[in-house]
Structure formats: structure tokens, C-alpha cells
């Protein structure tokens, strides 16, 4: 009997185990990015920037040159890299605390300068790494360790729709929101990620793909319940689809 390899780890991912919780979709997103870089033949010219948050160890997973940035500063670090290596493929991988809270100045001004980079923004509506605190993207009513009775709009305001914010910036070329909960949505997400990298290599400027992601641990749900909550509640507030293309 002969064996045929039908599914393997992309070479762009290192042979180390992820530290992510069961049911978390970071792993899928890592894989999609790795596949796209490989398929576009960019493996040896990619420089990635890891954030602070759950994906803080991303530099250990992507099999390319990597820089680990301070919390929220990945777009500034990526700027510093891209201005030296104009032909490199430079991406940042950022969570919602990193990008939508502490790093709002950096992300907005990277877009304003139309830095020619790809930003992969993983929105799971919570601070995962620090133990489930309220994020700028936490939905109204959603419980977190710093909003134990659910996010109260009166005290904490409304969650930020970052893709819509970014689309308002002239320098942003491509903005799309996707999710990774089933085959169809994963395929869509991959298309968006690939498009972002292609646009970068064509020199189109700043692009960002927002990927809605589950956090069963932080949300206090089973992975399946988390998927259902994402599809219903999150998508309701964060509509999927292309938000901006061209400028």
C-alpha cells in the first residue's frame, strides 16, 4: 500500500506547536498567511512583525525573518523595515487590543502615509493573552473580566469598527473584513489575505484584512458555541465583505 501526502504543514510555518487554546482560530489564520506567502513565491523576501497579545509568539511560528514589536507599535516598526527594504514583503499581525486600542495612532498614520505593507488584524473582541479583559472591540453586553456585567455602553462606549475607520483614510488602498469559521469563509479569508499581499507587491500601498476570530477561553464558551456567537453576534456588528478597494 502506498501513501499519498494530501495535507502538510506549509514550509512557511516552522515545525513547532502553537500555544493557542483549543478552538481558537489564530492557527487557521497563521496557516492561511503562510500558504499565501508561499504560493506567491515570497517566502525568502518576507519580513513579518509580531505584536503583543495572544500572537506575541508569532515570530516563533512564521518561518521567515521576523521582528517582535512593542504593544501597538507594529505598523511603525513595519514602516521602519519597509523603508529600508522596499522590495521585501512586510506584514504585521495584530490583535484588537494591539491595533484598535494602544496602537491606534500607529495604524492610522501608517495608512495615512500609505505605507506599502499588509496588516492582518485579528479581531476576537477580547484581550486573550492577559486573561479576558474588555477590548475596544468587545460588544455591548459582552462579559469580560473588566466588564463583569457585560460591556455597558454608558460607561465604556461602543466598540470600534476599525475597518470602517481605516477605510475613511485616503492612503488606505484595500480593506476587507472576513471570518474563518467554515470552509467557505476560510477560502474567502485566504483570497483576501492573498489579495493584500499581491497589492503590496504591486506597490499599491496600505492594506488591511480584518479577520474575525473566536476566543472560546476568553468568551467562556465551547468552540462550537463560540463559532455560532461569532457568526451571529459579531457579524451583526462587524459586517463582512469588501470595505474599500482602490484610492
Amino acid at each position, binding site marked *: 500500500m502506498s501513501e499519498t501526502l494530501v495535507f502538510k504543514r506549509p514550509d512557511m510555518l516552522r515545525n513547532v506547536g502553537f500555544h493557542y487554546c483549543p478552538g481558537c482560530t489564530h492557527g487557521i489564520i497563521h496557516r492561511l498567511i503562510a500558504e499565501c506567502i508561499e504560493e506567491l513565491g515570497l517566502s525568502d*523576501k518576507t519580513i513579518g512583525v509580531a505584536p503583543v497579545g495572544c500572537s506575541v509568539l508569532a515570530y516563533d511560528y512564521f518561518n521567515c525573518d521576523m521582528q517582535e514589536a512593542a504593544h501597538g507599535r507594529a505598523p511603525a516598526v513595519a514602516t521602519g523595515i519597509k523603508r529600508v527594504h522596499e522590495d521585501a514583503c512586510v506584514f504585521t499581525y495584530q490583535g484588537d487590543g494591539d491595533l484598535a486600542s494602544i496602537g491606534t495612532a500607529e495604524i492610522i498614520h501608517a495608512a495615512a502615509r500609505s505605507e506599502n505593507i499588509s496588516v492582518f488584524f485579528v479581531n476576537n473582541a477580547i484581550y486573550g493573552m492577559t486573561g479576558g479583559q474588555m477590548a475596544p472591540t468587545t460588544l455591548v453586553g459582552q462579559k469580560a473580566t473588566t466588564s463583569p456585567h457585560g460591556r455597558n455602553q454608558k460607561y465604556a462606549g461602543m466598540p470600534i469598527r476599525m475597518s470602517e475607520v481605516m477605510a475613511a483614510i485616503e492612503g488606505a488602498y484595500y480593506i476587507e473584513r472576513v471570518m474563518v469559521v467554515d470552509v467557505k469563509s476560510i477560502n474567502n479569508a485566504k483570497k483576501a489575505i492573498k489579495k493584500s499581499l499581491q497589492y503590496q507587491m504591486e506597490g499599491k500601498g496600505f492594506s488591511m484584512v480584518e479577520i474575525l476570530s473566536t476566543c472560546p477561553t476568553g468568551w467562556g464558551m465551547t468552540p462550537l458555541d463560540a463559532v455560532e456567537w461569532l457568526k451571529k453576534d459579531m457579524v451583526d456588528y462587524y459586517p463582512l465583505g469588501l470595505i474599500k478597494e482602490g484610492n
Partner: protein
Amino acid sequence: MEKRFMKGNEAIAEAAVMAGCRYFYGYPITPQNEIPEYFSWRLPEVGGIFIQAESEIGAINMCYGTSGSGARVMTSSSGPGLSLKAEGISYMAGANLPVVIVNIMRAGPGLGSIQPSQSDYLQATKGGGHGDYNCLVYAPTGVQSAVDLVQLAFDKADEYRMPAIILGDGVIGQMMEPVVIQEKKPIKVDKSWATVGWKDKNRPRAVINSLSLVPSELEEWNLNLQAKYKKIKESEVLYETYNMEDSDILVVAYGSTSRTIRSAIDENELKGHKIGLFTPISLWPYPEKELKEATKGKKCVLVVEMSAGQMLQDVKLAVGDTAPVHFYGRMGGIIPTAEEIFAQILKLGEVL
């Protein structure tokens, strides 16, 4: 060589360009604005990049990315901006990244004022950011000195893979003096650690990072930093002395203040007292042994600063009980005059 007549701030920028710096990221703040202004037209001339960042935080993190990519890079600011950069400086120190950072000090705390001061000494020499780290700190005494130290700082930052700070003040930044700026070829260092894209598989994958979640590994990382700092303390001390022979009072001052002391010495007959001047040029590493040696046989030491007495702490540690240490300082952006320092010295003379 051609002598030019330049402002300290402009000369600092040109010295960097002539030392091979092609990247500058900064944010406006007085009294250092001539530095980013100069780079904004000069760097494009030589194929370099100038970005006016969204903030000092953005600027220092752009430095992180560029330095991690293997290129020489500079940022500059003044006190309040350095407070914002502290985070990035700690990360760069932790990740072993070279960078040259200029602080043209103004009076604090808080918004303070834009007039000259030396009240960021402790911030520069003792950290400013979190963790056990140090930066090389050089204090210029004039425009030519600033030029020479900027060029030295780039080499030393590369050699030791760490941030180097040029600690000037509003006087150094704003004054004009004749200056010669020569091209200085960067020292040859191995930068195979830089992220350039992993084409060359003969080298390990480049990862710029200061995270280490295993305590024993992080301790090891720290011990390596400390070993580097120890070596620097032994070999990178810089200082100047003036009028040391037979002097009985030793004045210790750095930066523009040391020039005021020089005026006080040159312009006054000190009623039988001879005054020596010790000027630390490297504030970290601090010339501890050299200062202690210089105080031997002196009746007393007078430290003069534009602060409440920040370097004073290092002087006391260095001098120990070799000689009594006195202090005179002005704050709020007031520059002590040669006359008032002279009066302080006379007062000390009477006590002796």
C-alpha cells in the same frame, strides 16, 4: 578642511549624514526642531529617508524596525519626547539594537519650558524605561564636540549593538560655532542578525526580539547584557580636564555648564585659590575612577548643574570620602552665569 559656521542642531544632523546615517524619524519639539528640519531636505539629497512620525513613540519604533533591518538610524527630541521614547529605548536595548538618540534638554518636569536644562541626566544614564539596561550617553560641550560625539556614537552603538544617547541642552542645540564635519566611514561590524528576508539559508533565521518567557533564559539574556555593560565601563570612558595642576578646588560639570565654569576660571582672579575643572564626556559609562583620582589632594569638590543635583549622585559615589562634595544648581531654564559660579567658588574658598 572647510570650516563652517553652524548651529549645534544642524551640525548634529550633518554629522550623522556624514557618518552614513540615511534614516531619521522624529517629531517636532523645541529646542531641537532644526534637527528634523535639516534632515527633511538633506536626507533625500543622499537617497535617505526622513519621516515626520505621528509621535515620538512612532518615531522610536520606526527606528526599531530600521535598525533591526540593518541600517544606521537616528531620532531626536527633547525631555517630554524622551519620556515617550522610553518604551522603545528599553525594547531596543533589550533586542540589542543600535540607534543614536539625541536629547536637546529643556527644563522640566512636565511641560516645563523650552529653555536649556540638564534635568534629564538621570533619565538618560539610569534608564528612563523599564528593565535592567543602559544606554551609552555622551554629553557634548559645544558644536564641534557634538559633531565628534555623534559620529563616535554611531560607531559605538553598532559595535556594542545598543542605543547611544547624545545628551545636549538648549545652549548646545541653539548656539552657532565654527565647525569641521568630515565624512566618517562606519566601522565594519557583522549585521547578519538583521532582518533582510531569509534568502541566505546559511545564516539562522533573523528574529529581532526581547521576549523570553523562560526565566532562566531571560536571566541568561540579561547576564549577557550586563557583561557587555561591564566591558563598556572598562573601555569607553571619556572625560576632559582643565587647569588641574596645583588646583585646590575641583569643579565638576558637563555639557554647556562646563563651558561656563571655564569662563569663571579664565575671567577671574580667585584670591589665592586655583580652580580645576573635570568635565565628564561619557555620562554612561561615568568616569568614576578617573574622577576619584582627580579629587585626590583637592580641598573640596563643587558640582554645578542646570538641575536639582542629578549628576551629583554619581560624583558622590565616585569621590566617596576623598574630598567633601558641594553643589550649586539652577533650574527652570536658568543658565548659571560665570559670575554667580565665581561667587560660589569664593564662598567655598572662605570656608577652606
